[in-house]
């Protein structure tokens, strides 16, 4: 399948600082592609270049074959862009806001009315149709901004930190909305500084830091590539003595590289090898008479992985990176 979005050697410098240094990305149609990195990693700069708001210093990006350098007008018709910080106009009602952007995209008046209604329905703002935009809550403005990016039915959405500043419920709603959009056949590029937030949403992620691409691919692929092993937590039934015995037993196994008894009475096991090895270990543990009640990968695994990947970059370069 031809990629919806491709970048090759995409670079942006501000004076002597390099915000984005040669990023190569490929986003296939129908993907929800996560752009992950700490603050100042170059995510926003990358998205702004894709949205034709910044001209790349070097390299190029193509959106459905159109270069952001040479054909910004074509590109603008193909993307819906939602900036990380955006304002709203004073003195404007919700429907007028969408009507304005629909008008900007040259949508005829006959279609506009229905389109605005449909979009408000989609982002669940139909009841706020005649309210002033500045009176909406942050989450509602966020959804309205997303709706504005959809007026011209773009095949590609570029969303810069759409979940920032939202409460957990609004985040869940946003996630649902993005899934719905994906089911409509849209390709979505979404940036975030929190990898776990994107874990269950994205079909692929790219981790960038200091303007450089550190890893890209499916989340589990990256996990497999970067992780030397898994961290598993096991609960063993019995008293403290049984727990200590279990710890000793695990420590003797070839797969285990470290065993620790957590304060809550569980065991944390650092394991070598993949999930098959972990399964084999569990089978042997049960076979050895250990009363294992739970055995699962640690939940914070992904977060640690993210820190592990991004912290490995040189600290002196971090200060120069610009958002």
């Amino acid at each position, binding site marked *: 399948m031809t990629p919806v979005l491709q970048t090759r050697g995409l670079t942006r410098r501000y004076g002597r600082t390099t915000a984005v240094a040669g990023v190569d990305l490929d986003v296939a149609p129908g993907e929800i592609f996560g752009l992950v990195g700490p603050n100042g990693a170059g995510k926003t700069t990358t998205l702004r270049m894709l949205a034709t708001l910044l001209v790349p210093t*070097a390299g190029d990006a193509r959106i459905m074959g159109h270069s952001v350098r040479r054909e910004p007008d074509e590109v603008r018709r193909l993307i819906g862009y939602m900036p990380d910080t955006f304002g709203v106009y004073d003195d404007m009602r919700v429907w007028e806001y969408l009507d304005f952007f629909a008008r900007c995209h040259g949508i005829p008046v006959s279609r506009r009315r229905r389109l605005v209604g449909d979009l408000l329905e989609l982002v669940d703002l139909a009841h706020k149709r005649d309210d002033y935009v500045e009176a909406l809550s942050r989450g509602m403005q966020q959804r309205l901004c997303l709706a504005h990016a959809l007026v011209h039915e773009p095949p590609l959405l570029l969303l810069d930190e759409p979940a920032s500043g939202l409460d957990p419920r609004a985040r869940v709603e946003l996630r649902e909305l993005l899934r719905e959009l994906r089911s409509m056949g849209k390709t979505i590029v979404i940036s975030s500084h929190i990898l776990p937030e994107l874990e269950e949403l994205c079909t692929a992620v790219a981790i960038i830091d200091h303007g450089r691409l550190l890893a890209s691919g499916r989340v589990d692929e990256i996990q497999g590539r970067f992780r030397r092993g898994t961290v598993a937590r096991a609960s063993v039934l019995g008293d403290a003595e049984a727990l200590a015995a279990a710890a000793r037993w695990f420590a003797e196994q070839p797969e285990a590289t470290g065993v620790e008894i957590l304060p809550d009475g569980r065991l944390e096991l650092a394991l070598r090898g993949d999930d098959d090895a972990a399964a084999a270990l569990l089978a042997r543990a049960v076979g050895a008479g250990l009363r294992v009640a739970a055995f699962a990968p640690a939940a914070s695994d992904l977060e640690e992985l993210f820190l592990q990947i991004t912290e490995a970059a040189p600290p002196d370069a971090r200060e120069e990176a610009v958002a």
Partner: protein
Amino acid sequence: MSTTIAPLPSGSGRRGPARALRAFATGISAVSVKELRGRMRGRRAFVIVTIYLLLLSAFAFGIYAYLRQQATIEAESMFRDGVVNGTAELALSADIGHAIFSGLLLVLTLMVLVLAPAFTTGAISLEREKQTIDLLVTTPLSTLGMVIGKLVSALSYVFLLILASVPLMAIVFVFGGVGPEDLLRAYAVLFATAFGMGAMGLFISALTRRTQTATVITLIVVLAITLGSAAVHEFWTVLSTETAKAQAGFIPVKRTDRAPVAILWLNPFVGDMDLICTTAPGGYDRDTCDYVASVTGTPFFSTPRSDCSDGRPCEQPAFGDAGGFAKRGFAVEPALAAEFPVGRGDEPVADDVAPQQQALPSFGFPRDTFWPQSAIAFVVVGIVLTLLSAQLVAPTRRLRLRRGTVPDGAAWGTPASPPTSDPPTVPGGPPRASADAPEPTDEVTP
């Protein structure tokens, strides 16, 4: 929700000038409709127009009442002295008409000078401040259309205020002295000024990041083109006059050099003076005519009224005191003027006037000597600044040298090679982003 699923946006298949024109027209209509919706919402805009008209009427009535009172005092003294002068009342009527015309014109000019840039100074910097500009720029609107849309919406309100004054201005017809063509001239000056100053505010807004800065700069510019330009012009004239005297040495030649009139082109009050001067009863108003003549070098003493030839009946020459005509020494004696075409060679407009000096002497100030230049200057400045504003708003179409080049060897269509294959084991050793990254690392460290 089926309407939101479409493979491509409509209109993406069209290319070339037709689409560019459409983006341009859409820009104007979309932006101006949006702006006007905000500006005209509720009763505020119309209440302002009403208050403005009431104030303007009060001002016009004040002029009328004052002149009327003066005339009554004068007439009483005449009756007391036993002088019966039938022309006194006639002259008064034309005087009142002229005074109301002059007063309203100056007030309207002041309003345009303040309001036109005030409505546009926030046009673009506010979008930047409120971070709405990114949303606007990522639409396929042409930036020129967008900028013109902003200008149209801001100016339409100023134009509304100008046009609302027309019925009030028409009162001058009751008093006589000022004709409809004079009003047309006056409104031409006002509209040109509004356009030029609106574009000025827009340009300053596009140039600055903050509205506060834009407002201050606009205020300075307005002061500079009014008070500043007049001061500079006067200063220049004084300096060059001294030089001319020094060069003349002992030869007793009276010559006065003039500063370039272009300095005053963007000063709308000088254009007003030109209009006030030529509409004065008797075709001459000492204060304004003298200034306009000294500025443009129009030797009105010996020049026929330019509109005598185009069917307009020439008014009878009014015999004022002769001292007023030759007061400031700008009017070179005709014979001398032939010998010393002082300060006239550098000036195309004055060249046109020069042959007329040999024509039959007539009284009354020549029309259209200054204000058309001023109006054209405002329109030209307005167009140029609008185009520049559009360039400043466009993020990618700015006139710039291309520094970066697109690598031709880039493998479009094939998936990018995975950037890293090794896990970052050593904290000191960063994972190299990709082996084929075009940036050497020493570029990154300052």
